[in-house]
């Protein structure tokens, strides 16, 4: 059974329909990517799963439970965590406090310190910046902090919205390496990216979203080889 299943999801912003009934699933342990151009509805999909946006119709099932109408905090408490677009770290709080906020939903407070150690292993640079205000970090470090904060919640499914946005190419590679490492630890990942090339290179499967509908789907390798995808998203053919 799929860990996350989205069925016929329809979402609108006022009169404008952003998603016209999309369906997809994410299996336990996978990396699945949603790729597509600006305005295709990628972020809307993630926002709706996290209950930041209301669905008009359709169904979202997580771990066998219907979460379509659950509250944002209830969803986080079930281990479905989002790394939002634009990082959204708590700028005046220190790195440590940001990480502690990430663990807000957890009940196993004793193990939080262990999670923090794990996060420092992944992002040694954050440990150096522990008492620095989050807002003073560089863009790359802020992205790392955003991922680290999400990991502090001990996610089972991690939703990542454009983790490569605005980062230098070398940092993009670093972030994607880390995504793979997190996945290897057993965290399922749903990745939304404009950088289709990078996203398809680490994903198991992918979906191509275009103006609110799913145009193509399949194993990541097949999508990367698909002439349509190459032309539209991979810059050439």
């Amino acid at each position: 059974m799929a860990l996350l299943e989205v069925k016929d999801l329809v979402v609108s912003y006022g009169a404008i329909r952003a998603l016209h009934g999309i369906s997809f699933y994410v299996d336990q342990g996978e990396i699945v990517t949603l790729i597509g151009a600006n305005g295709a509805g990628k972020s809307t999909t993630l926002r709706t799963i996290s209950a930041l946006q209301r669905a008009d119709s359709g169904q979202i099932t997580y771990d066998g439970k219907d979460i379509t109408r659950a509250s944002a905090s209830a969803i986080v408490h079930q281990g479905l965590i989002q790394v939002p677009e634009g990082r959204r770290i708590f700028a005046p709080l220190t790195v440590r406090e940001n990480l502690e906020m990430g663990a807000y939903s957890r009940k196993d407070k004793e193990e939080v310190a262990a999670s923090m150690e794990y996060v420092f292993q992944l992002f040694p640079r954050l440990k150096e910046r522990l008492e620095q205000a989050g807002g003073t970090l560089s863009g790359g470090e802020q992205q790392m902090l955003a991922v680290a904060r999400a990991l502090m919640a001990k996610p089972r499914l991690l939703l990542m919205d454009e983790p490569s946005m605005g980062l230098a190419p070398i940092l993009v590679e670093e972030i994607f390496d880390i995504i793979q490492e997190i996945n290897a630890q057993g965290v399922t990942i749903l990745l939304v990216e404009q950088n289709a090339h990078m996203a398809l290179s680490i994903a198991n499967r992918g979906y191509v979203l275009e103006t609110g509908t799913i145009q193509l789907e399949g194993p990541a390798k097949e999508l990367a080889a698909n002439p349509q995808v190459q032309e539209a998203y991979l810059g050439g053919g």
Partner: protein
Amino acid sequence: MMLQKLRKPGFYFLGISLLIYIVIQVPLSLGLLNNYWRGIIFWGAAITMVTLGLNLIYGFNGQFSLGQYGFYAIGAYASADVTYRWLHGDTSGLLVVLFGSLLSLLFYALVAAFLRRFYRVSALTQFTYYTLVTIFAFWLTVQYLVPLLGPGTLSLLQALPEAVSRQIVFFVALAGGAAMAGISSFLFGIPVLELGSDYFGIATLGFTIIIKVLLDNTDTILPFPEMKGARGMIGIPQWTTWTWVFLSFMFVVIVMRNLLHSSVGRTILAVREDERAAELVGIDVASAKILAFVVGSIFAGLAGGIRAHDLAFLHPQSFNFVQSFNPLIIVVLGGLGSMTGTILTGFLWIFLLEGFLRLYLPPGFETWRLVVYPLILLLMMLLRPEGLFGQYEVPFLRQTFPSLRKSVQAEEEPLKEVAA
């Protein structure tokens, strides 16, 4: 050692507070402080409590509110009505605020448990349920509990010495005023807090105006002839003593401090920093906002009771919306998100502008106040936009994020020992 470090600021804080208490109580007992300055001190304390509440709502939780004076007025009138009725041998005010709010709380718990079974109940639905049970609670109290318990309570309290019964009645009046402010802010906050900051500000301004209009008409459209509408309520006993002021003030400061230092306080701050991010770490944003709003309003209600029983006279005009800018100016001047700033600026504000200005400047100058206030604010915005005190706090009030830090420190310490 750790324990001493943590407690020291607390001891200092309480020590200094007690000292201030004595420094003011002694001249009061000896008759050295005249009524004018006594009034100024009490007024300063009341305004500071109102402003601390606003700082919790605006400074710490980021919800711009102009409604603080509305809740101040509710607290003032509600508590004044309780003591006024008591003086006229009527315990109904006492019983209504006491049992009405207790019953409401009980019903709220039941409604909350009931609504928890549904996903994402819309704010208006919640508002409807909570309002209906509130009306039901007060109707039950007025209709059944007051006739049932009224005579008994009266004879019970009259059997006590007057000094004791007065303190009991005054305590219930103050708590009742605060509770009325809390209940109205809860009901008002459910639908309105969801609007987001700017719209919330406008809605709270509307609230203050509605309250003022209602107070103008307490004897005509509301069933409270003793409040005398726009003529002003007279005959309120002057029961506020320095001890009551001090206790209420310390209550406000310590409750606010402990709230902000708790994990709930952390959610309140996180909502201010970034609502979306707070939601994504699993914080129930709506509850955090309502909590800060209700607690802040309770402070205002309590201050209203203190002020009413010092002035012994209430007039709707003192709660109009121009007045409601006072706490806003003080909180911005003192520093949003600084309790220390609010406390010092609140007292200073009343001392300088109401105390010294009237005494030492030529008469008529106080009419210039509405020119002076905006000028001060303007200069402030230009020279020191973060407020006089920024986010500075005296050690006792300083927020930390203590709960999780311990575990990480505990891991670091053995390392140091090895190095030594």
